C-alpha cells in the first residue's frame, strides 16, 4: 500500500480509493505520477485544483485517485463540464484528464471549441490508440493497419493528429510526449498549468492489454521501445514530408503563445457593464 512504499507523491492520492483499477503495465500510472510531480514541483495546493474526467480507463487516472475536487462526468463531455467549473471558479486550476476516445472521439467537438474559445483549462489527453475500457475496439487514433477487436483484419481508417488540430484551433499551449519521456511530460504539464488559456498535453501511452497484445507488443516495455524508436522531435519533423512521418510520433511543443483568454474576457465585459469590481477583485493585478 501507498504508506509502506513511502511513495513521495502518495500524499496527492485518495488513499481510500487505492489500489487503482489500472492493469499491470498500463501507462496510466506514469501519467498520474507525472501529474502529481508537476503539481508538487509547482507547489500548487490541491485545494486550488478541480480535476474533471470523462469515461474510460484514462478518465480513471485522476478520478477518483487524485486528492482534489474531482468531477467524473459522462463519456466525451468532460471539457464542457469543466467549462462551467472554470467560469464559476476562474482563480482555480481546472484540469481535464481523459482518454483519446473520450476527448477526441465522442467529445472531439468540445475539445476543438474549448481551444477556439481559449478557456483556461488544462487538458491531459491520454492517447493509447484504443477504446481500452470497452475491450479494445478501434479508436479515431488507432494507427492505419493496426488490429483491434473491431478491425480484426486491419484498420482501414487514418488516425487523427490531435495535437496538430488543437494547435490550429487556437489553444495557447500544445505539447505531445510519450510515457517514455517522463521528464519532458512533467515539464510540459507544468507549462500547461501555468499558461493562461487553453492548454493540451497529449500523452501517448501504452495499453499492452488491449492494443499491444493484438499488435505484436504484449510486453509494456516493447511498447515503450516502439515509442522511443519512432519518436521524432518537432524541430526535425518540420523538414519531413507527410509520407516520411507516416507511423511516427512527433513529439515536443506545438505552440506556446498568448491569446485573450475566455473567462478574463467574460469578466472584463461584466466589469464594463456594471462599472464596478466585485468583492475579492481588489487583489487582482
Amino acid at each position, binding site marked *: 500500500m501507498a504508506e509502506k512504499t513511502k511513495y513521495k507523491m502518495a500524499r496527492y492520492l485518495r488513499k481510500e480509493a487505492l489500489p487503482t483499477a489500472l492493469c499491470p503495465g498500463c501507462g496510466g500510472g506514469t501519467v498520474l505520477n507525472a501529474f502529481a510531480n508537476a503539481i508538487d514541483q509547482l507547489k500548487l495546493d490541491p485545494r486550488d485544483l478541480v480535476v474533471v474526467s470523462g469515461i474510460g480507463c484514462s478518465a480513471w487516472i485522476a478520478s477518483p485517485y487524485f486528492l482534489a475536487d474531482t468531477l*467524473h462526468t459522462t463519456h466525451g463531455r468532460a471539457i*464542457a*463540464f469543466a467549462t462551467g*467549473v472554470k467560469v464559476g471558479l476562474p482563480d482555480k486550476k481546472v484540469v481535464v484528464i481523459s482518454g483519446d476516445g473520450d476527448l477526441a472521439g465522442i467529445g472531439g467537438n468540445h475539445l476543438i471549441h474549448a481551444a477556439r474559445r481559449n478557456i483556461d483549462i488544462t487538458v491531459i489527453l491520454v492517447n493509447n490508440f484504443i477504446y481500452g475500457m470497452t475491450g479494445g475496439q478501434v479508436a479515431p487514433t488507432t494507427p492505419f493497419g493496426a488490429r483491434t477487436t473491431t478491425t480484426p483484419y486491419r484498420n482501414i481508417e487514418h488516425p487523427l493528429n490531435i495535437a496538430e488540430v488543437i494547435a490550429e484551433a487556437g489553444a495557447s499551449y500544445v505539447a505531445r510526449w510519450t510515457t517514455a519521456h517522463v521528464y519532458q511530460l512533467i515539464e510540459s504539464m507544468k507549462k500547461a498549468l501555468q499558461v493562461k488559456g487553453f492548454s493540451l498535453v497529449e500523452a501517448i501511452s501504452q495499453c499492452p492489454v488491449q492494443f499491444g497484445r493484438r499488435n505484436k507488443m504484449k510486453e509494456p516495455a516493447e511498447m515503450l521501445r516502439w515509442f522511443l524508436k519512432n519518436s521524432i522531435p518537432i524541430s526535425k519533423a518540420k523538414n519531413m514530408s507527410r509520407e516520411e512521418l507516416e507511423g511516427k510520433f512527433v513529439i515536443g511543443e506545438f505552440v506556446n503563445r498568448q491569446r485573450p483568454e475566455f473567462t478574463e474576457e467574460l469578466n472584463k465585459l461584466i466589469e464594463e457593464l456594471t462599472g464596478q469590481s466585485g468583492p475579492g477583485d481588489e487583489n487582482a493585478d
Partner: protein
Amino acid sequence: MIIRGDEPEQIALLKKLYPKGNYFMQGDEAIAYGAIFAGCRFYAGYPITPASEIAETMARELPKVRGYYIQMEDEIGSIAAIIGASWTGLKSMTATSGPGFSLMMENLGYAIMTETPIVVVDVQRSGPSTGQATKGAQGDFFQARWGTHGDHPIVAISPISVEDSFWETIRAFNISEKLRIPVVLLTDGVIGHAREQIRIPDPEEVEIVYRKLPKNEEEAKYPFGDVDGSLVPPMPLFGHGYFTHVTGSTHKETGLRDVYTPEVHIKLVNRLHKKVEKHEKEIEKWEEHFTDDMEILVISWGVSARPSFGAVLRAREEGIKVGLFIPKTVHPFPGRRVKELARKVRAILVPEMNLGQLILEVQRYVNDDVILKGVNKIGGVPLTVEEILREIRGVWDG
C-alpha cells in the same frame, strides 16, 4: 464570484434595472427574468426555435447582474456546463426545444444521479424530429418524465401564461435548490412566443431558496448521505478544500464509486426517489375551478389550459356542471387529487396539443365507469374554446 441572488447589492441592482410594475413581454423573456430574480447567474445554451429568446435575453441581461452567459457548441455541452457551474455554487439554467432536449437526456440523468440543482427549460415544439420547428406543441410530456434512462425521479413544471412563466421559473429554481434535483420547465412555443402583460414584483417580494451547504468538515464528507434526516444531503461545493468527488456511477455516501455492491445501488437510488416523495407537499401545485359541484371534469395543462378555462366558463353560462383541474407541477403527477376528483364525476375530458399523453397519466387514477376522453390537436395550431366547448356539450348531452 459566486452570487446567490439575495445579496443586498444584488437586490438593489434588480430594483434599479427592473423597477416593479407592468411590462409587456413574451413568455420566453418572462422565463429569463424569472431566472434572474430566482438568482440564476449562469446560463449556457445553444440556439433553437422557439427557445432562442431565452438565450438572447440572458445574453443581454446576465452580465448586468454580474452573471455569466456562454453559448456552447451544442445542447449536450450546454447542460454539461450548467452542471459544472452548479458545483461551484452558481444557480444555473439552460433552455432548448425538442431536438435539443433529446440531446440533453444523458446529462439530465447525470444531474439526477449526482443530485445537482439545475433548471432545464423545454419550450416544446411540434415533433417528432425537426417537425414544425416554429410551432408549439405538448408532445414532450413523457420525454420529460422518462427521457433519460434508468429508474429515476424528476420534477417538471408547466406554466400556463406569460406571468405564470415568470413565477413558475422561480418555483423551478427553488425546488431544484431545496431538493438538489434538476427541474424541467415544460413550456411550449405558443406561450413562449405570446406577448402579454406581466407584473414584475419588487425583488423583496420574491422568496428564493439556496441549496443547503455543509455546516462543517464532517458533513462535507457525505455529499450523498442523509446527514440530517431530510434525505437531501448538503452540497460541498468545489473550491472549498473539501476534496469532493462527484460521479454518475453508483457511489457511496462519500461519493466514491462502488458499482459492485447491490446494497449501495439500492440505497442510493431509493433515496433519490424517497427525497421527492418526502417533499411532495412542497413540490405539488395545481389550480382548480368549479370542482365543488361538477359532473364533468376537464383536466388540462400548459397552453391548452387557457382555452380549457374559456370553454369551462362558457359551459357554466349554459348551465353545464363542469369543473377544471390544471396541474402546474406535472411530474410527479398529482394523482391522489385526481383520484378524489374523479370519484365525483361521470366524465373527464383531457384537452392537449398532442395525440394523448397527459390522458395516460390521468387514466391511472380513474375508474372504468367514468368516461375518459381526449381532446387532441396537432399541427401547430392551439386548441380553441369552441373546440373544447363542443366536446363538453357532447358529454353533457351524451
